[in-house]
């Protein structure tokens, strides 16, 4: 990074540290914070969409759809997320490739499973093996987002399902009395009102999601924990210009600060959203705003 970093062995103190902290490897570490934030930013709305779909299915009047929705919610919630992460990415990847294989290579005569191998035709590979590395990484990232969304979608579905039931019955009855159809009742009355009941659950889910990101490295994404482990481990002079002992504690301390700070910021933002949602609602939170105003 800096010009004086050419020969780290001659450096000491702060200059050494400034060179050490700006190696390409550390840049990758700092970049990983961006990766985690990006993942959270994409996963949260996706998981919410999964949750909305799951909750809507679970309260559907169509029995098979209802079963699917309820099974999704209860099975995924019953399993530790770590167990999912350990085999889900490979399963998803194989599933996608198998579907593409069926669609793109109808004339393929060899079996897809050859012993232990999972082999699809070249055209069905995801991404194509001729694709540049960054496409592979984006695809891996996409799989990680999808896995997170499926797991946390089940929790979100559970929260939204409860929130939908918490909307006062009278509100829906009034809508019906006004001659609204089932669909209109759902979209115009139920959905806008359910958020205030869902927010406490959803904000906790957000906190859980933040704290699940250390498991990202299981999904093949090089996240902050991967780099903290890698950078913190003992480095012998043979393989690096910056040898040091076991510094994992300092790196993990940095992660701890990051997570605590992120939690605190989230708490403050969510409090503000809650205050806004409570505005004008016939709940105790809404009442409180009126009396203090």
């Amino acid at each position, binding site marked *: 990074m800096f010009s004086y970093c050419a020969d780290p062995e001659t450096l000491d103190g702060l200059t050494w540290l400034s060179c050490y902290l700006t190696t390409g490897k550390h840049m990758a570490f700092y970049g990983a914070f961006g990766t985690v934030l990006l993942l959270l930013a994409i996963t949260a709305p996706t998981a919410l969409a999964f949750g909305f779909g799951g909750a809507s299915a679970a309260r559907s009047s169509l029995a098979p759809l209802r079963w699917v929705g309820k099974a999704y919610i209860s099975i995924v919630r*019953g399993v*530790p997320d770590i167990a*999912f992460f350990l085999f889900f990415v490979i399963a998803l990847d194989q599933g996608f490739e198998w579907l593409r294989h069926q669609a793109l290579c109808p004339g393929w005569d060899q079996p897809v499973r050859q012993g232990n191998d999972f082999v699809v035709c070249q055209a069905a590979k995801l991404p194509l093996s001729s694709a540049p590395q960054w496409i592979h990484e984006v695809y891996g990232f996409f799989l990680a987002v999808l896995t997170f969304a499926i797991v946390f979608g089940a929790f979100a579905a559970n929260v939204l399902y409860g929130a939908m*039931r918490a909307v006062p019955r009278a509100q829906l009855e009034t809508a019906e009395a006004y001659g609204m159809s089932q669909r209109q009742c759902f979209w115009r009355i139920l959905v806008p009102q359910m958020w205030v009941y869902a927010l406490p659950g959803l904000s906790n889910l957000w906190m859980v999601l933040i704290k699940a990101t250390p498991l990202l490295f299981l999904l093949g994404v090089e996240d902050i924990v991967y780099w903290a482990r890698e950078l913190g481990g003992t480095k012998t002079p043979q393989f690096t210009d910056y040898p040091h002992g076991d510094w994992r504690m300092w790196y993990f301390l940095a992660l701890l600060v990051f997570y*605590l700070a992120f939690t605190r910021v989230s708490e403050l933002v969510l409090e503000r959203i809650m205050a806004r949602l409570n505005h004008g609602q016939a709940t105790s939170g809404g009442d409180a705003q009126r009396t203090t105003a």
Partner: protein
Amino acid sequence: MSCWEVIADYGLRSLGIGERLLPRDDFTLCKQVVLIGSGMIWNIYFGALALVTGFFLATAVALGKAARNPVARKLSTWFIFVFRGSPLFIQFFFAYFAFLSLKGVSPIFDPFTAAWLGALIVLFLNTAAYSGEIFYGALQAIPRGDLEAADAYGFTGWARFRRITWPTLLRLAWPAYTNEAIFLFHATTLVYFSGFPAWRQKGDALYYANYFADKTFNPFVPYPILAGYFILLTLVIIGIFGLVNRRLNRHLPQAARGKIRFRPNLLR
């Protein structure tokens, strides 16, 4: 080797009873189910003990957070913030590190670096923080009328807490607390995965699932078995907590009791 023999050999392997060596070939479905099931003993041990002990600390922390005394309030608030705001696996890392350092100070701390005690302490503190926040929320939600009625009847101090505040608090907190229990049991899989070392290949369910996935190079058998066990465990927890919920709400009219609803208000 029949499946019964496998159960005799490996059923208690996670405690060190039975075969000394883990299976090294012929990984039948029976072996995988039995050994992963044997590991569940540890998951249940960690979960159950942490939950029971954590319950008491959680009550104290909740009362501390609601207390007038600023020292108690700050202490409880920070305790909850640190343990709820950081990933469990980082807590495990620092705990193991701290226990190792303490071991150098005095041999009293020797057992703390072993998972059965060290990891239990982390899980105990962790669940106390999460449950403490749940109880604190419930404490704030106790209807004013209940407390006024208690005052009118002349209840004070301990009697008021024991007879009025505490039962109401539990009743309000119970659905969220059920979720916390479920998540605590799920979190026990992290103990050997990224926290504490496994001694003599005695590990929890995930440790053995991982072992089989590594030996067979096929993750699609052991992990679903693990998932199946946890779904069963979750159902049992929901059943037990549902019974307690019924008892807590037994004085209410039937319709108002309602079924326990699993709205995760506070989870990991």
